[in-house]
């Protein structure tokens, strides 16, 4: 859905950068799972999502602002955090896109990519500044959605996970359920809020506000299978250039399927992301099994209490 009008005909340069597509590359089957819930819509739609390529993020925060403008999210004027250029700190009820800034001493592989190296004594390592725009992952199996007792959280026809502000009663259950700390309750109105993947815009075929604004196309929006293919291409490109640090996060359905996944240059936890998230809510057996055992024990306990006599 991102505009892909050719700008230099014949050159293959299009409005949306196609620098990600490598010709002749074999693309693995990556058709993402259609999540439970999405299947039941009258009309079948491809699952839509985000590929956030943090290697081209310039930390401009246009995504944060565009999101807030579109969704009328209130601002929260705080203090300087002293944490690089990040003053909104984390995703939350009033920040649905959040840009992380990480200052690091580490070899800069991107410089090796072009055969350029910065000097500096070996033991120092080189400096790099990582930036990454985080967002709700629109999980294939979303713990938040599973636990919501009101049906406020639901799966849309695009395979995304949305809170319905007209339903949410602020029970707060989804907050600790989310493995990524995405959801939070807004003090002023008692409800929880998060990225809707611009559900309203998508209904009209529009690109989400954050992706549209992103100057460098760090945020790419589209059908998830296409995005995963692109991402694999980009990853290959980086690996070929010697950027061994590069990795995809959330692109593998077997591990943890995300509708919004990322290309990172370091361990996820460095960006504030969990290294191995789990769908905690689908472990019905171990969860309810233990409860059944406990209930049994309770029955046994009561029975035992009467075993010694009724009075």
């Amino acid at each position: 859905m991102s505009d892909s009008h050719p700008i230099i005909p014949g050159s293959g340069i299009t409005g949306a950068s196609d620098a990600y597509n490598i010709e002749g590359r074999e693309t693995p089957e990556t058709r993402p799972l259609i999540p439970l819930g999405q299947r039941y819509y009258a009309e079948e739609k491809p699952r839509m999502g985000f590929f956030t390529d943090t290697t081209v993020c310039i930390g401009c925060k246009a995504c944060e602002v565009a999101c807030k403008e579109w969704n009328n999210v209130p601002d929260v004027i705080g203090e300087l955090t002293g944490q690089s250029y990040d003053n909104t700190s984390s995703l939350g009820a009033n920040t649905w896109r959040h840009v992380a800034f990480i200052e690091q001493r580490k070899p800069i592989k991107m410089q090796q990519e072009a055969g350029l190296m910065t000097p500096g004594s070996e033991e120092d390592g080189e400096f790099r500044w990582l930036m990454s725009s985080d967002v709700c992952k629109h999980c294939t199996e979303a713990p938040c959605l599973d636990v919501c007792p009101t049906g406020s959280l639901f799966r849309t026809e695009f395979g995304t996970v949305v809170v319905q502000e007209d339903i949410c009663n602020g029970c707060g259950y989804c907050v600790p359920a989310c493995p990524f700390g995405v959801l939070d309750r807004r003090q002023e109105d008692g409800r929880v809020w998060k990225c809707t993947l611009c559900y309203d815009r998508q209904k009209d075929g529009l690109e989400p506000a954050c992706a549209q604004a992103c100057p460098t196309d760090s945020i790419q929006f589209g059908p998830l299978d296409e995005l995963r293919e692109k991402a694999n291409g980009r990853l290959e490109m980086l690996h070929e250039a010697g950027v061994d640090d590069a990795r995809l996060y959330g692109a593998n359905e077997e591990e943890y399927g995300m509708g919004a996944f990322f290309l990172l240059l370091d361990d996820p936890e460095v960006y504030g992301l969990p290294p191995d998230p789990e769908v905690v809510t689908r472990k019905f057996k171990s969860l309810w099994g233990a409860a059944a055992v406990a209930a049994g024990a309770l029955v046994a306990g009561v029975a035992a209490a009467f075993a010694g006599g009724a009075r």
Partner: protein
Amino acid sequence: MGSNMAENHPVGFQWVVEARLRGAKIIHVDPRFTRTSAMSNLHVPLRAGTDIAFLGGIVNYILENDRYFRDYVVHYTNAPVIVSEEYADTEDLDGLFSGYDPESRSYDASTWQYVGTTVSGAAGQREMGGITGEQAHYAQAGELGHGGEPPEMDRTLEHPRCVFQILKKHYSRYTPEMVEEICGTPKELFLQVAEALCENSGREKTSAFCYAVGWTQHTVGVQYIRTAAIIQLLLGNIGRPGGGILALRGHASIQGSTDIPTLYNILPGYLPMPHAHQHQNLEMYVERNSAKSGYWGNMKAYMVSLLKAYWGGAATAENDFCFDYLPRLTGDHSIYPALMGMIDGWCKGFFVMGENPAVGAANGKLQRLALANLDWLIVRDFSEIESASFWYDSPEIETGELKTEEIGTEVFFMPAAAHTEKNGSFTNTQRLLQWHFRAVEPQGDCRSELWFMYHLGRKVREKLANSTDPKDRAILDLNWDYPIEEESEFEEPDAEAVLREIGGWDENNEPLPSYLPIKADGSTTCGCWIYAGVYADEVNQAARKKPYWEQGGNWVAPEWAWAWPMNRRIIYNRASADPEGRPWSERKKYIWWDEEQGQWTGYDVPDISPTKRPDYEPEAGAVAEDAIRGDKPFIMQADGRGWIFVPAGLTDGPLPTHYEPHESPFENALYGQQSNPVREVYPRPENPYNPSDGDPGARVFPYVFTTYRLTEHHTAGGMTRTVGHLSELQPEMFCEVSPELAKERGLENDGWATIITSRTAIEARVLVTDRVVPMKVQGRVVHQVGLPYHWGSKGIVTGDSANDLLGLTLDPNVHIGEYKAATCDIRPGRRPRGPALVRLVEDYRRRAESHNGGG
């Protein structure tokens, strides 16, 4: 270099990122590691204020290693031209050029000429109130000899006085070691840059420089850019796609406001303002301002058409087209002398329309003292900015230096209409005029500047209608009958009608198709000659919004908006082809000579008469563009060549030379001359300077500080500190310091610091970061302090203003202040309040023996 493009031109930066994805190398040379550096292949730190040493080092590298693009250099630049025998270089005079007058602190440029030419001395007459800066730009470089070439040349580039050899000598001591010594940039790093640049230039490849105010805001700002120009000319990177020196300009229409200037020294289209002594009539004006050859050969036509636009029917050949209605310059009338005039009382009134000097301009206190000494002040803005509120909430009120009841300024705050509430055009950094349409009507008393000026003019004219005073004729004869928009509720003038006047018309009132038909006989009218054609065919060409994908595959997208001149997107594009008119390479072709059609073709509008053959040689007596040869791309210059050496037009020398900033903790390692000898200084009590190295007390201000922008805020903050969604992203004023400096001074991340100069002290939260590195310069470690300058006393978020720290010292060519390099001290904790603040600064001044002068 000198630009933090990812942060300050983020959407433009998409093309840089795109290029990187395709394999381009991005190098960022900046004192700090910024968001641009993060996206670059290489970040190269340097000490603020030392770029000429760095770039001069590259020039030296190119010359020493024979890496220049010979064909280009010989044919398209003035490298082969022989320079006057009287010329003496900084190498001979320890940092000065020939012609320096210490008395007046200025140069007489007559010794810088090409051999065999005379020049109407342009530079160096400041005492006479001579021509400076942009104006002198157009002064001629002398007459040309046979075939449109300068009189004496050596195409082998061997002659000891040819520009090429002079250049070689001038930069011979700018070695990698010297670069390291001055800039603090490790030698290996510097060499990587030099090599990368050379490698990526030539026939097949081009490199571009992007700069912005990291370069201009120095006492040698113009010469920074000149050094880059020399490199690009040597490497053949100008006038070609993917090449050039790209000025990333500032505000939405800063380019427009220089083209159609709200500047003292020029009229629309860069026509110089007339000077009282030199330009007593139109003829003298044209004679003295323009060369016969090159595009300025048509100056009279442009000027007459402008006068017709101003005074219409009243302007006739008989009355010199009302030339005498134009006020005359006698010297520097830029905002800085005007400010001094406000303090001294001779400048009594002030219109501030779309600027916020109380926060945005250097030496905030001086700015506010000026405001406080006016008779009347008109501030037009969206919100009550600091320049409107200074009389009750400036820092000087807090310290007791000013008292509200004692400020006599009468202040009118007039709410302004936003761009969404008016029609009009902005000219962006690419010289593209883009029209914005009104979306909604302005509310309340909000009005456009168009409305304000039109009705102010109308009222003044009404009030003076019966005047017989000759000085009022210029007002009463003014062509001021703009149509009013029909639907408008409050008589908004029609912006398109104004644009039409700017674009001009001929004797039949038909809009001009371009500047080519503009005449000197008064038959054409044109408000800004370079914009001629913007209203061609009665169509607002700037309002064209044809999607780029519908433009028949031309990636230049010529049908989106309109670029001056003549919708040309790359100027000097004749240089994209070789002297014979063939593309230098297939890969880099842009425009070329098509022998069959007998004309130039390509992707863009050629920057040469379309049918001028590559082998064209002007006949004797040819003027203007006809006097330029067919193999010369630089058509604005009299000789059609790119100037490596500038014989006329600059006040501070024909070749860029490294000087230390006005305030610097170091001595000039190259010359005895410490700073730019002709830099402008304002030695007055309101504007004390920190001592520089060599002066006693320099160590009281041991650190270098530089000021800059953040993506999240805009300039003086009036357009971002009023917006919650931006304010929350950078809520507080801060300073950036290295861990080493933090340790040295006991600063804590997230804590407070006080930064002190001779002007005042401000407080800021501390951000300790590896992005600022201490540099080793002349055997000493120097720490740099980074300060964004977006905060002030009004808005959703407030804070101290970095500009209160800076003194006023200017580049002598364009009167731009040195915002990018000065010295300071820093200490932990918040600053004192009230009179204690004044005492603290006084104490520092005493210890440093800060002075009002400039050496």
